[in-house]
């Protein structure tokens, strides 16, 4: 087993294991977004801005474009003392590039009943070739 010690890893680097040849991929961007009240970009990485696009909906704009629009994302949301135990984040695959491109992805947060909901915290990570 080897250890990598580095203060900075460039965005276009791919870390490769020396054992077994397995390739590790890095999270390229992440966002902690508040859609409740006045929309707020609480914190982020690899993100130039967030856009409040409506009730329970927002768009994450990336600092650096992905090389294609097939990158993956995963997210969670919630609130302090939340009763929204079955909340979910979805994204718009955007037929025709309306909802997801290499430079942004539109997401929405829904409650257990399937209604778009403005949560205090919407956390999403993005992974793909960049």
């Amino acid at each position, binding site marked *: 087993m080897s250890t990598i010690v580095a203060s900075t890893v460039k*965005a*276009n680097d791919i870390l490769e294991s020396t054992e077994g040849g397995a390739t590790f991929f890095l999270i390229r961007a992440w966002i902690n977004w508040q859609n409740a009240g006045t929309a707020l970009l609480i*914190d982020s990485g690899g993100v130039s801005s*967030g856009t409040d696009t409506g009730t329970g909906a927002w768009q994450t704009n990336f*600092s650096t474009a992905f090389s294609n629009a097939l990158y993956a994302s995963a997210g969670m949301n919630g609130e302090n003392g939340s009763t929204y135990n079955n909340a979910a984040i979805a994204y718009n695959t955007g037929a*025709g*590039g309306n909802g997801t491109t*290499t430079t942004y992805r539109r997401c929405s947060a829904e409650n257990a009943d399937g209604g778009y909901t403005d949560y205090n915290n919407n956390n999403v990570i993005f992974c793909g070739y960049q």
Partner: protein
Amino acid sequence: MTDYRVIFDDPDSLDEPTKVLVPSDRWMKEAMEGNLPPITVFWDLQDDEQKAIAEGRHDKFEHDPEKYMKQFTAPRIGPLTEEEALEYLIMKDLPRKCWAEQHNRPMFKIVTKDQVPTDRTFRNAWELVQ
């Protein structure tokens, strides 16, 4: 932390609610420290992707490697003021039709965060007031 927000309508989707763009503080810091490539780097990528969308081949679209790498390799444009960084962000993250074409009314407005309503009742009915 920037106090500015950009409210805008997408000329191609005027039925959608007015949107509110929130800049990333981390990105603004990078911009003001002079770490951004020329805006044309992003425009070239956006143009190629829009062409792929228009031609119905977005699902298999990959950025041209040379244009793509310019995000990392193009000479940096130098430090920007907060106002210049915001202008750059508008030209990067807003639909180009918002700011590059003339309309019968302004399609975006730079405001302070205090000017954005906190009451999200009827959020999907928000309109940009002239």
